[in-house]
Structure formats: C-alpha cells, structure tokens
C-alpha cells in the first residue's frame, strides 16, 4: 500500500507540468463516504511566505480594505500527481483550476 503522510503533504511545494513551482498545499479536504474518509480536493496557496502571512486574519484586521487578497486554487484529487511524494505535480494547468473565494 502506498502511503503518504498528511503532515508532510501540507506545506509542500507543488510544481506544474513544466516543473515550475506554483504554490504550496495548504489544506486537504476529505468527504465521509460509507464510513471512509475519501480525499476530494486540495487547496493550493499561490504566492510566497509574505503573501501567505499577509492574508492572515490579524493583518486583515489591521489593514482593513488594504489587506492583500489571498490567492487560492482548488485542485481536484485527480489533478494532483503524487507518484513522487516529495514533488507533487499538477496534471492540469493552473488556469483551469477554480479560484477559491476567501
């Protein structure tokens, strides 16, 4: 059985089909189905550390309307290739993946 650990997946950099880093896995959403927890999608956070920190609740409270918008994409489970667990790879272009509302 091929295993992967959630705690190592979270925060891992994701590359696109051309090998460029596009962002990091921020969250994994799973659905309860027939007593199993099935992974449905991943939340991909685009941008560097500064952008990710800058979108936090505290910063939004301090900056109000001037706070940067977080950029997040929803990656369906079949759009992420985890055969190399150290380098998750998108199987579809980023532009095709839906943006997530904040």
């Amino acid at each position: 059985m091929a295993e992967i650990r959630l705690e190592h997946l979270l925060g891992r950099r994701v590359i696109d089909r051309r090998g460029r880093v596009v962002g990091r896995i921020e969250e994994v959403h799973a659905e309860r189905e027939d007593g199993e927890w099935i992974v449905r999608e991943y939340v991909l956070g685009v941008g560097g550390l500064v952008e990710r920190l800058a979108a936090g609740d505290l910063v939004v409270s301090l900056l109000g309307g001037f706070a940067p918008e977080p950029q997040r994409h929803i990656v369906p489970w079949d759009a992420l290739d985890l055969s190399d667990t150290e380098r998750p790879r998108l199987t579809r272009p980023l532009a095709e993946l839906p943006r997530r509302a904040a």
Partner: protein
Amino acid sequence: MLSLGRDVLDKQLLDAEGRPFGKVDGVVLELRPDAPPRVVALEVGAATRLARLPRWMTRPLGGLATRATATRIPRSAVLSVAREIRVGIDATETPAWRVEKWLARLIARIPGGR
C-alpha cells in the same frame, strides 16, 4: 467536507474513557491507483512529532529519538470529530502510554503520588 489539516491534524485526542492522550501528530493516507486517496489511520507519538520537526532540531537528540514511539489508530476507531477527536480505544493499552506508565510507576514510589 472535512478539512484534514484544520479539523483533524494536531487536534486533541480522547480515548474511549474520555482520557486525553495527546494530539493527532500524524494522519496516514493511502494512495490508490485510479482512485482518490483515503485516510487509513491517525498517529500519535513522539516519533511522529520528531519526524515533523526540521532535522537540525532533532539531530542533537540522537539516542533519545530512537526510543520514541508512534501509535497508529485506525480510522475505523474514530468515533467523532468535534472540538476533540474521540477514538474507541483504551489509551492505556497503547505504546503512547508507555512513558506515562513508566513515570507513573516511578511516581508511585514517592509518597503522596498516589
């Protein structure tokens, strides 16, 4: 929809008796060909925690690290996911409780510890 990072990982674990026995230190996913990954187990233990920390922090611990345990809790044992995660096992039967048992034996020798 369950957010595994937010709602499961690092959440407080309670055993069948309502005893706190750590936080979820790890979640094990099974990768399947042509099927979405699924959660097979939760893990609690120092070994799992150490694996999450950067190497420069854990290397000085050396020998201690090899004695660290990791207890696997099959997903089927999870009773509920709320503010805490309740699992239907007895914490005292797990390797994670080993340290607690060892210390408790030590403490029992000291007056007033009971």
